[in-house]
């Protein structure tokens, strides 16, 4: 700095502008001596009020929903029959439709249909199988609005997310895997053309958090490799998968290649234990996953599992903090926190902790919680009453354990429906249950750390290993962390990104096998 400029600046500092409400600089503060703590800084608060309030912006397109739905077996929709479950719109508690519960007979029929279809489907030239998958991808894109609306009605996720994330990824998965059908022998080193064989009939059980996306992640690679499928959607969210079956019909997918049986846990048990299946794939809780692992081990059939998580999201003081805060938001409040890879444990390097928490607080004030069909809603409805009760139970546990609850969003929640304001806990200790157990809701546990090795140690101290986040501007530190984190997906300076070409799946008790990319194919071929 040249001397003139320095002088000028000093002069400017000297006659501090009256317009400024800045607190006086420390240098001219009265000297209180070393015994005194510095006075707490003046807090300046931004006001997020209603100076300009958004009007309701509901998605108004009507989507037909039948009074009842049966299963989709051997290319036919069956009648619902007497034994049904209600599927409810969690945002309004209205019953959307009645959906059949598959019993032994239905599961038998579905497995038989898949078995019958299996030989021909596997024998079809890869390039021909591919065309069916390409067609499916295209029709999904064309019917995307309908699918998005249905997904939001049935599951409670914001229409913004089903429209911009779920459904586009569904189409992407079919399109991506279509291209693999005739190239499988390139995917496995050492194997020649014709040496890559499908398992046969795959039983697949999927969860309610990404209903159609999980269906696509399971069905697309299975079909690409020449398998046939019997798949069971979650009992709270069967509608979009049944709608996808309409697309299968439209594109002329051969009968029995994909069969859908609806129902809850008992149907899942029937399907997973059916002697006619050659492979089991499941996404859901670790508890159920372990039971299925045991079943598969007894049968000696292969299994892939994509299970729970309690993923660490680690922020270093040298990170770009605003983007890191954005990563916290998309890490834990995306899809109401109903995300197996949610960044539910936040670790902040101590020097940055105050800033990160302050900015998180500010950021959460503009989160919009409420009607999932409103295009401006960021956090929609909790998927079911049961799940809401579980989340509320954990929030209570957190408070009882002595952690401090903060919920800066504090929206007026709709009177009906299952809603939960996004929140976070500070003062969380590693031993707290909210820091160890998967809550599957918009609840974040914030902890701090001092050194990279401490962060690694605490991040890895969990039976889970699905995902992890690292935020730093230092490349060497980032790679060291990424290597040492025991997790199947490590997001560096980003979080919750998904792609059909990118393998997804966990270490340890978060499951085994990968979905997506070339690595996802391995789950659906023999050997």
């Amino acid at each position, binding site marked *: 700095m040249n001397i003139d400029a320095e002088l000028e600046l000093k002069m400017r500092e000297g006659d501090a502008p009256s317009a400024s409400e800045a607190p006086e600089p420390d240098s001219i503060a009265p000297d209180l001596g070393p015994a005194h703590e510095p006075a707490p800084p003046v807090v300046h608060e931004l006001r997020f009020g209603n100076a300009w309030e958004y009007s309701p912006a509901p998605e108004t397109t009507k989507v037909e929903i039948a009074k009842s739905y049966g299963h989709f077996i051997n290319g036919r929709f069956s009648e619902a029959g007497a034994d049904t479950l209600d599927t409810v719109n969690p945002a309004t508690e209205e019953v959307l439709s009645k959906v059949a519960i598959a019993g032994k007979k239905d599961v038998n029929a579905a497995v038989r249909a898949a078995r019958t279809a299996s030989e021909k489907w596997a024998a079809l030239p890869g390039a021909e199988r591919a065309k069916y998958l390409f067609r499916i991808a295209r029709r999904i894109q064309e019917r995307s609005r309908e699918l998005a609306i249905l997904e939001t009605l049935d599951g409670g996720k914001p229409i913004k997310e089903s429209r911009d994330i779920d459904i586009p990824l569904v189409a992407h998965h079919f399109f991506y895997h279509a291209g693999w059908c005739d190239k499988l022998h390139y995917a496995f080193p050492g194997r020649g053309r014709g040496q890559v064989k499908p398992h046969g009939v795959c039983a697949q059980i999927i969860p309610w958090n990404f209903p159609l996306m999980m269906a696509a992640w399971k069905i697309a690679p299975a079909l690409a490799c020449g398998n046939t499928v019997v798949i069971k959607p979650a009992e709270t969210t069967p509608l979009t998968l049944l709608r996808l079956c309409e697309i299968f019909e439209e594109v002329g997918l051969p009968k029995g290649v994909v069969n859908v049986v609806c129902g809850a846990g008992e149907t899942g048990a029937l399907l997973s234990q059916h002697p006619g299946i050659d492979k089991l794939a499941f996404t859901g809780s670790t508890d159920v*996953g372990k039971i299925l692992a045991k079943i598969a081990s007894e049968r000696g059939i292969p299994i892939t599992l994509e299970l729970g998580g309690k993923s660490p999201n680690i922020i270093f003081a040298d990170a770009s903090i605003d983007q890191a805060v954005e990563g916290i938001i998309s890490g834990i409040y995306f899809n109401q926190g109903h995300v197996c890879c949610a960044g539910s444990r936040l670790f902040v390097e101590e020097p940055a902790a105050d800033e990160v928490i302050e900015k998180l607080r500010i950021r959460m004030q503009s989160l919009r919680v409420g009607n999932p069909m409103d295009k401006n809603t960021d956090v929609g409805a909790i998927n079911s009453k049961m799940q809401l009760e579980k989340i509320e139970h954990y929030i209570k546990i957190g408070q009882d354990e002595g952690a401090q609850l903060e919920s800066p969003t504090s929206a007026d929640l709709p009177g009906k429906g299952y809603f939960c304001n996004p929140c976070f806990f500070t003062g969380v200790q590693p031993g707290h249950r909210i820091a160890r157990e998967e809550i599957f809701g918009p609840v974040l546990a914030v902890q701090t750390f001092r050194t990279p090795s401490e962060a690694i140690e605490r991040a890895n101290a969990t039976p889970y290993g699905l995902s992890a986040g690292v935020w730093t501007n230092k490349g060497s530190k980032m790679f060291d962390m990424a290597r040492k984190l025991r997790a199947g997906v490590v997001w560096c300076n980003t979080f919750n990104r998904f792609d059909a070409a990118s393998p997804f799946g966990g270490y340890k008790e978060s499951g085994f096998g990968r979905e997506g990319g070339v690595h996802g194919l391995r789950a659906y071929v023999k050997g």
Partner: protein
Amino acid sequence: MTNRLSVTKTHKLLIGGAFVRSESGRSIETTDASGMPAHLCQASRKDLRNAVEAARGAFGGWSGRTAYNRAQILYRLAEMMEGRADELRAATIEKAPATRAPAKRTAKKSSKKKTSKKTIARRTPAPKVHEFDEVELAIDRLVAFAGWADKYEQVIGGKNPVAGPFYNFTSPEPTGVTMVVAPDTPPLLGLVSLIAPALCCGCTVVALASEASPIPACLLGELCETSDVPAGVLNILTGFRAELVHHISVHRDIDAVLAANLDEESGAMLRSGAGENLKRVTVKKLTPRQWRDPDECETPALIERVVEMKTIWHPMAT
């Protein structure tokens, strides 16, 4: 010929780089290659626990070494095997003795005794001479996997073309502590074929030796200790499968299991371990011909059984 009394040997367990007796104090009587009486330690549940602990402790260091370094250490082990090939051959082929597994109950009860003389199978006929040289094949197999150590990542990993401004790649990482349960036969080739994929990628190993012919495994352990294999990276137990498979199955700190040619019951027990902590269990069935086949036993598909695919995302922008 002098009328010298020979020194008989007790083969000890290899745990954490030390040759130790079973904490249970039990041993099994057997004969060595020359027909002389010898003793083996009979590993207990607690020996297994200690070995897993040693393997866990060694995991960070071994997996953190460069692949090139791991490759050289495995190659060094192959060199050592070559140097003692005759001894290994004698142990595996000529007069390989067999021990006999006691019934499960007996094993449990006897474990309480300070010393127990296990049923000896000294007069059991030696296994049929293989129509191949197991030692040569085992050495070559180890060399093959020494070569894989710094190549498999490129073969089974890669960059993913995601639809966005991200640099995204997937590469394998060792899954952790791998339990190897060696087949009865071929005792050395079987053991090496299972430990080599795990060691080359950075897993640490606890191996349960062939029950029928455990001595080659003990010799391999001795070679390890003279060939730069760090302590705890390979731990070798001798004993009875019937006694140990249950404990392997429910051990939550074992990440993966590689086994071959087990009886139905042991295989099922190991596989059920997936239900405990989702350990990655592979139980193979291989014919003598397949054991010799590089396409079967030297493929990176075996390494894939003991690695985790890790996908890393990073934004690309200025």
